């Protein structure tokens, strides 16, 4: 297990470096926005990764509700946490891209607002997990995860209509418009790299959660067998 992990980690690192080169150097410079547009190669893959992780969280939460398997729960919390991390990256790189291009840090446009709402939903999920005192936290959390993900289409629909009613900065649609194949290639490379990276981090978080689950179970068993170890003989 350990060796596989190291090999995969090295592969991922290699992929990330290659993708970085492709995005930063090899891909051609965009005409209208200039060099800043290269943020796109980090911003978009992060968004897609975050969304995929939340999708997995949804599926795994349903599995948990059906089977009550601890592994499902461990995967649920892992994908949610790593998803929030990637979502944070999107919310930070977005304004850093917007500022030089449109002159403003933040704009309540459809995509950025939807991402912010996604972030809020899953942060609230994580907070519920942390503050719950119930013994059945995983069940409650799984239910909230279902609600949260079902909300996503509404978030996107509502924001799209709302924002098209107000003047907003136009996304110079990535270089997909008038697609230079080298740009698409750089984008795909970065997506693959970040997917691999996300998988790695989720795996780490998953192992941590499983270890903690096992430990807590051991502690519980111990206290059943030896109710009070402190009593003097």
């Amino acid at each position, binding site marked *: 297990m350990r060796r596989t992990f190291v090999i995969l980690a090295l592969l991922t690192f290699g992929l990330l470096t290659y993708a*970085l080169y492709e995005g*930063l150097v090899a891909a051609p410079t965009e005409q209208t926005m*200039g*060099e*800043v547009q*290269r*943020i796109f190669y*980090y*911003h978009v893959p*992060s968004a897609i990764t975050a969304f995929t992780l939340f999708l997995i969280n949804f599926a795994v939460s349903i599995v948990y509700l059906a089977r009550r398997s601890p592994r499902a729960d461990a995967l649920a919390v892992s994908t949610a*946490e*790593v998803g929030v*991390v990637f979502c*944070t*990256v999107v919310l*930070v*790189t977005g304004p*850093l*891209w917007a*500022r*030089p291009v449109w002159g403003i840090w933040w704009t309540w446009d459809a995509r950025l607002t939807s991402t912010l709402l996604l972030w809020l939903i899953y942060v609230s999920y994580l907070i519920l997990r942390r503050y719950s005192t119930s013994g059945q936290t995983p069940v409650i959390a799984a239910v909230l995860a279902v609600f949260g993900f079902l909300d996503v289409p509404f978030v996107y629909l509502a924001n799209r209509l709302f924002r098209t009613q107000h003047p907003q900065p136009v996304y110079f649609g990535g270089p997909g418009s008038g697609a230079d194949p080298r740009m698409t290639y750089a984008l795909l490379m970065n997506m693959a790299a970040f997917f691999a*990276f996300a998988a790695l*981090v989720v795996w*780490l*978080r998953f192992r*941590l959660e499983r*270890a*903690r689950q096992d*430990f807590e179970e*051991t*502690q519980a068993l*111990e206290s059943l067998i030896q109710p009070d*170890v402190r009593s003097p003989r």
Partner: protein
Amino acid sequence: MKFLYAAYAATWVIHITYLTVLSRRFRRLRDEMQEFRKK
């Protein structure tokens, strides 16, 4: 452009911060397990 480097740097700062948090949690769990085994 400064913003470009800031964005790339911020991305990795965020990821590395999370990985650091994870490693700290791993360490704490290991310490707790050692404490427990001593008893």
